[in-house]
C-alpha cells in the first residue's frame, strides 16, 4: 500500500502595501491560490491595506490573516514576517503576488530561504495536481514548464479580471489579526531591517530626467 501524497497547505502573501496601479494582479494571485482549496491570504502593514486585502480575499472565498504593523521593512524584513505566518499556519506552499509592486519579487527568494523551501519566480500560470504543481514560468524570451514537488515559494504574475473601480473596503470581522509578538517576532529586532523613510518620488517630467530613468534599461552598447 502506497502512502498518500502529502497535502499541500497553501498561503498567498499579498505583501505589505497596496498595489501601485491596479488590484487586478492581487485578484489574480488570490484566484490562483483559490484553486488549491483551503488557501489563506496573508497581508501585513497598515490597517487600510489589511482591510483591502481582506476584502478582496473574502470575495474569492479565502480567509485572510493580517499582521498589523507600522514598520517599513526591506525584502528580508517582510520575508521574516511571512515566514513566521507560514510556520504558524503550517503552510508548505507560499504564493507571492509579485506583480502588484515591483520590489516584491525579491521577497520570493527571501521567504524561500527562511523556510528552506524551493523557489520559483515569474510564474504566469499554475495548476495543482495532487502533491505536484505544474507551473509556467516566463524567463526572458522563453516560457519554462516546471513541475514543483514539495515545499516551495512561488512568485506569481497572474492577472485577475480587469477592474477599474472597486468599493472602498470596510474593516472586516473576517480578518484574523496576528500581532508580531504572537508570531514570535520582536518588533525591535525586526526594526533592524527597516528602510529609511523616503518621500514619494514624483514622476520625471523632463526629457533629461526620463532619459536618466530609462538608462538603466538601455541595451549595453558593443564595446561598452
Amino acid at each position: 500500500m502506497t502512502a498518500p501524497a502529502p497535502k499541500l497547505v497553501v498561503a498567498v502573501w499579498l505583501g505589505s502595501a497596496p498595489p501601485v496601479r491596479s488590484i487586478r494582479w492581487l485578484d489574480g494571485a488570490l484566484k490562483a491560490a483559490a484553486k488549491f482549496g483551503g488557501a489563506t491570504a496573508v497581508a501585513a502593514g497598515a490597517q487600510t491595506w489589511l482591510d483591502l486585502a481582506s476584502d478582496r480575499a473574502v470575495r474569492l472565498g479565502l480567509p485572510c490573516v493580517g499582521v498589523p504593523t507600522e514598520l517599513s521593512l526591506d525584502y528580508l524584513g517582510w520575508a521574516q514576517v511571512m515566514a513566521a505566518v507560514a510556520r504558524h499556519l503550517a503552510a508548505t506552499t507560499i504564493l507571492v503576488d509579485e506583480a502588484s509592486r515591483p520590489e516584491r519579487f525579491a521577497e520570493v527568494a527571501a521567504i524561500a530561504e527562511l523556510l528552506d523551501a524551493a523557489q520559483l519566480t515569474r510564474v504566469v500560470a499554475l495548476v495543482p495536481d495532487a502533491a505536484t504543481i505544474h507551473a509556467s514560468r516566463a524567463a526572458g524570451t522563453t516560457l519554462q514548464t516546471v513541475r514543483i514537488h514539495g515545499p516551495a515559494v512561488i512568485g506569481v504574475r497572474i492577472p485577475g479580471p480587469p477592474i477599474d473601480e472597486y468599493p472602498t473596503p470596510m474593516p472586516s470581522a473576517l480578518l484574523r489579526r496576528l500581532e508580531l509578538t504572537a508570531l514570535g517576532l520582536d518588533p525591535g529586532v525586526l526594526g533592524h531591517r527597516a528602510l529609511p523613510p523616503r518621500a514619494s518620488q514624483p514622476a520625471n517630467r523632463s526629457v533629461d530626467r526620463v532619459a536618466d530613468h530609462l538608462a538603466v534599461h538601455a541595451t549595453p552598447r558593443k564595446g561598452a
Partner: protein
Amino acid sequence: MQALTAGRAVASSWGATLYAAVIARDPEKRPGAEPPARIGPRVPGDPKTIEAIRSALARGGADKIVVALTDTAIIPLWSALGTAWQGVLDRLRPRLVLFGADAPSATELGPRTGARIGARLFLRARGVGSDEVELRDRDGSYVRMTDSGAAVVLVGAAPRVGRHGDDDIDVMVLELPGGVDPRIELASTAPAELVHTTGTLVAIGDDAACDPEIAQAAQRLAQVLGAHVVGSAAAATAGVVGAGAVLERGAPLIPELCVAIGLPPIDLAGSASLVRVGTAGGKGVDGALTGPIAANLGELARLLEDR
C-alpha cells in the same frame, strides 16, 4: 558584462579585488564520479571558447576568475545553480555581489544570495561618481565603501571605464558536485509570447501609430532600449508593430519597463516601471512627457545613444 564593468569601477575606487564568477558544466563530469586528485588552472569545454571567455573577463576588468564546475545542466534557476553558487560564496565571502540586472539568472540568484548572506538588496542600480564610486538604485538608496554589511546589487547601467589589458589573471576552479534541488523539475521550454515578456516594451497607441514621424521615433527608441514595439491590430496596420507583436485590446502585460506612447489599448498596470509619452501620466507612473511626441522620443533616443 555590465556587472563586471560596474564592479571594476567600484573595485578600483574602493581598493578591492574583483572576482568574476562563472558557473560551468563539466561535460566530463558525472554525478557520483570520484573527483580528480588535482584540477589544473583550466576551464573545461572547448579551449578556444574558454580562452575567449577568460580573455573577455580579463579585458572587462576582472582581477581574478572563479569557475564553479557542476555536473548539472546550466538552467537559470536557483534550484539548478544554487549549490554551485553557494560554493562560490563560501569560498569568497564577498562583501559586494553584483549581477547584471538583465542576466537570465539574476532574478533567481540575486535576491536569494542577498537573503542567504543577510545583505541589503539593490535593484537596477548604477555606478555614480568617479573618485569615490557608489552604486545607487532608482529609489535613491546607495552602497558606499564606508557602509557596513554586505550588499547585493542588480546592475542596470555601468559607468564607462577604460579597457583593461591584463590577460594573465588567475583562474580558480571549484569542483562542486551535484546539488540540483529535486523539488523543481524543468519539464520543457518553449518560446514565450510577448504578453509574457519580462523585459522592456514600447507600447504604441492607435492614433500615435498612424503618424509616420512618431512611428519612426518609436522604433528608434525601441532599438536603443532593446525593446519590442507592441500595439493593437490597428497599429499593426500602420506598419509600426510587427506581426508577432500585435496584442489583443486590454491584454495585461508584465514587463520590467514599458514606454507607453499615446494611449495604447493595453493594460500596462503590471509594468514594474511605466513611462508615458504624449499623456500627462497617472497613478504610479515613473515618468511622463507631454508635448510633441515625435520630438520627445527622438530626443530620448539621442540622449540614450550618447551615453
